[in-house]
Each structure stands twice: as C-alpha cells, then as structure tokens.
C-alpha cells in the first residue's frame, strides 16, 4: 500500500516537473509554498538579487502590480486576474527575438493561500501585433464599402469631404461636418492612451497610416467602439509635401463589459496610474522611429526613489505604496500632455520627453527632483520625506536605440546615486569629454 502511495507520489512529481505551464502556490506575503520547474525557469532570470523564495520579490522589477492586485482583492477566494500580461523585456528580446511576454493568472484559494500560473505568450503577442498591422492594410483596401465612414481632410486640417456612412455612424448630418476643422468633429480619448489628434495625423503622414481604436459617441449619446484608420492622401502634384488625409471609421461591435477598464489595465500601472512597461515601450519605440525619420530631439529621464527599501522596511509596504502613488501624482502634474510618465518597476520610473533637447530634459528632471524632495507623506509614524535620483539621456547618432538610451540614462542614474543621491546626472563626468 505504502509502495503504491510512493509510486503515485513520484508520478505526480514527474507530472508537475514536466508541466509546460508555470505553477506557484504562495501566501499573502508572496512566500512560495510550492513551485514547479516551468515557473522557476521564467521567474529566476527576473529575480536578480532579490529573494527567489518570494514570488512578489522576484517580480518586483517586471510586474510590481501583481502584489497590489493581490492586496486589493478583498474576497477570501476567487480569480484576481486572468491572463494578465507581463512585459519581461524592454526593447527587443534576447538575441533580437520578439520581446518576451508572460501571461499570469492569480487565483485566491483561501485567505492565506493563492495559486499563480505563468505561460510564455511571446509568440502569440508577436503574431497579434503583425496581424493587426495586416488587418489595417486590409481595412484600407476595402474602404470603399458602405459600412465604412470616410472623411477627407486637407493638409491644414479642414474636412473637405464626408460620405453618408459617416452620418449613419455618428449621427451628424454631412452639412454639419464639411468645412469644419477636424478636431471639432473627431474626439480623441487621450486618457485611455491614444496620442493627440495632431500626433495621430503626424504618424499617418510619416508611416502612411495610423490606426486608432477608442470609444466614440453618436449624437444620440450612445457609445460605440470605433476603429479609425488615418491614411495620408495619395494625391497631389508630386511635391513631397503633406497633401491631406483620409480617415476611415468603422463601428466595431464590442462587448461593453471589457471596455476601457481592460485598456487601462493593459496600459497603466495598477497602483500609481503611471504608464506600464508595455505602454512605455510602445510609445518609446514610436518616438524613436520618429527621431529616426526627422531628428526632432527626444529625451529620456530615469528616476529611482532613494533608500526605498528602508521606507518599506521601516514603515511597511502600504506606506511604500503611498510614496509611489504620491510621487506619480506630483511628477505627472508637472509634465506636458505629450510627455509620458511610466513606472518601469519597483521604485523606478521613466519620463519620455518628445521634442525635448537634453538641457531642457535636465532642467525638467531638476524641477521633478525638487518637487519630490518637497513632498511630505503622512504616515502613522508622522510625516515622511523622500528624495529621488535622476539620470537623463537624449537620442544622438551614437546612441538612439531604445535599449541604448535606457542604458545611458541608467548609467547616469547610477552615477547620481553614487555621488550622494537626490541629484540629476546627464553627462559622463570624465574630464576628456570636452
């Protein structure tokens, strides 16, 4: 009998060892109770110097939101998140492959016990991206079909053509649309992560097309999910100047329930509301391509809260979370709408500054530094003050890649830490730089 049990136990181990999905059982502090090899294969390379026996510690850099999602889940049992995407790589993946993405599902089994699964969805995410691009092109080919509303826009942004399908879709009579500035007719949901209309047109001009997806409203007040393809107008006299745009609008049937919450979850950090790694990466790549095309300056600030571990250790994680939230609010409020404030991991943040030269970026970093140093965080132990260190970089011929700029800014951030913290570094301190 006990031999049978031993054999069963061994077969169960074999099964779990070979399981192609990562499985982790953990307690409310993140301490791992059980873990299978597939999970460790994905998690250990992310752990760095942090405790490999704690799930939240290992994911602190890549997916700090998981701890917050767990902490905010009030019920004793249930699904906390399903297929939550974790962007492992910033920039391209190892060996030039697609950047690695993991899907994570958290299920709470009891007040003190939860299970996490991890699966590698890098290939699917890469396919999705390519399919989406293909779909956009396909969509532009069949734009003559009736169900596609079409606007035509001049180079200076005036609507000079509109079809009946646009009236059916939006409820606006064509005579109320023609001759109007485009920004009076088309609304942009910037809160949900869409670039401004001006930027969308600029991207269409540069790439030939730009696809936006967002909620729009009919004149009846009803909301609908709208795919909008902005395409540069292929007419003109051969002069290489903007000639205007076509906008193809499609009313896509979509379940209201997955709505903007899902989009927010996909693009923004759960705790701080700052852009998450995935969103930051997409925007950075977009701006980086724009830099390649027109050499408009592009700068990056990395910042890291000083002695953050001590804040958590002395005052507890909830206070640490308040610090991160407050810092995000203070910094976001000081930036322009075109700037992007993102949380890259634990207590590390980034600011992407389009159309900004290095000197301006350094000046902004110093204003952010002063504002962070002036913050007072109320805690149960009395008011708490913090500082942060900053590193800046700007795109140059020698260093324009996403990875390169992050590496450069990170080096300066490290130097700022080394030089005593609460400061901004942007240039190598090697004297022969002159």
């Amino acid at each position: 009998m006990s031999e049978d049990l031993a054999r069963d136990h061994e077969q169960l181990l074999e099964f779990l060892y070979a399981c192609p999905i990562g499985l982790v059982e953990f307690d409310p502090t993140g301490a791992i109770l059980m873990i299978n090899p597939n999970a460790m294969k994905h998690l250990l390379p992310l752990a760095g110097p942090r405790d490999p026996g704690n799930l939240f510690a290992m994911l602190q850099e890549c997916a700090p939101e998981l701890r917050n999602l767990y902490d905010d889940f009030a019920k004793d049992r249930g699904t906390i998140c399903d297929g939550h995407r974790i962007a492992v790589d910033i920039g391209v993946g190892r060996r030039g492959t697609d950047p690695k993405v993991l899907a994570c599902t958290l299920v709470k089994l009891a007040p003190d016990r939860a299970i996490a699964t991890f699966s590698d969805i890098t290939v699917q995410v890469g396919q999705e991206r390519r399919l989406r691009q293909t779909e956009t092109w396909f969509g532009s080919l069949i734009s003559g079909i009736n169900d596609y509303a079409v606007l035509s826009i001049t180079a200076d942004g005036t609507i000079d053509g509109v079809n009946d399908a646009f009236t059916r879709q939006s409820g606006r009579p064509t005579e109320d649309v023609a001759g109007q500035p485009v920004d009076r007719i088309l609304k942009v949901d910037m809160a949900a992560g869409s670039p401004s209309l001006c930027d969308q047109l600029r991207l269409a001009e540069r790439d030939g097309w730009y696809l936006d997806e967002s909620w729009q409203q009919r004149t009846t007040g009803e909301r609908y999910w709208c795919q909008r393809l902005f395409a540069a107008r292929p007419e003109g006299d051969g002069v290489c100047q903007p000639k205007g745009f076509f906008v193809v609008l499609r009313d896509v049937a979509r379940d209201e329930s997955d709505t903007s919450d899902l989009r927010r979850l996909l693009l923004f950090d759960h705790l701080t509301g700052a852009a998450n790694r995935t969103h930051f990466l997409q925007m950075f790549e977009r701006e980086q391509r724009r830099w390649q095309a027109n050499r408009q300056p592009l700068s990056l600030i990395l910042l890291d809260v000083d002695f953050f571990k001590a804040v958590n250790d002395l005052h507890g994680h909830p206070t640490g979370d308040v610090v991160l939230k407050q810092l995000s609010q203070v910094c976001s409020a000081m930036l322009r709408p075109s700037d992007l404030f993102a949380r890259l991991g634990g207590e590390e943040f980034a600011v992407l500054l389009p159309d900004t030269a290095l000197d301006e970026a350094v000046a902004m970093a110093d204003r952010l530094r002063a504002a962070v140093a002036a913050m007072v965080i109320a805690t149960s132990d009395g008011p708490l003050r913090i500082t942060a260190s900053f590193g800046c970089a700007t795109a140059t011929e020698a260093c324009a890649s996403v990875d390169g700029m992050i590496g450069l800014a990170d080096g300066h951030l490290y130097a700022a830490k080394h030089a005593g913290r609460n400061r901004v570094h942007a240039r190598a301190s090697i004297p022969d730089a002159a």
Partner: protein
Amino acid sequence: MAVSTAFDDIEIGTLVALPEAERDALPYGVTGLDSEGLVVVYSAAEARMAGLDRDTVIGQPYFDSVAQCMNNFMVAQRFEDETELDETLPYVLTLRMRPTRVRLRLLATSSEPLNYILIER
C-alpha cells in the same frame, strides 16, 4: 595519488572514469546528458533530491521533462553555445516543488560525448 572528487575540484575526465557505485556515493547530484539533451547518467543523490526514480528519468529529455527550471539562457543555452564549459553558479531549483537554493557546476568538453551538471544542495 588521490584525485579530488569534491564538487568544486572534480575534473570531467575523473567523473567519466568513476565507477557507478562511487558516482552514486558522491554527496552531490550528477546528471549526464547526451548531445540530444537526453539523460544518460542520473546519480542516486540526484534521484533522491528530486524525488524521482532513476529508471524513469534515464532517456528523458532533461530540460523539457525533468528540469525545465534550467531550460533558459542561464543553463541550457550555455551547453548549446559553448563546447568547453566549466562554470559554477548559484541557482534555485524546484526540488519536490519547493524552491531550493543550490550550486550548479556545468561541465562540457569536446573530447567527452556527455555534458554534465553537478548539483550541490
């Protein structure tokens, strides 16, 4: 002359020449993989740590079915990329489904058909 069989010292040649009983008596685990990554050598200490029967492990694709936790750039990729390898690194395995800190020593040389992984708890 006594040749050291300690975890840090043992040479791949010594390991290959060691009789099976002596290899099983080593205080650390020894796994030998052929060029396809199939398990050829699986020592008693290793079987004990993992909680598996040696007979079921022999012939299995190691990095796919037994030790996926090493199937990444830190271990498996090293054997693919390097023909001469002798490196010791701290690692965390999932022996019996528990995170377990170990030291790994990766050994490969072009004159020996098998690659070896030594595991010390």
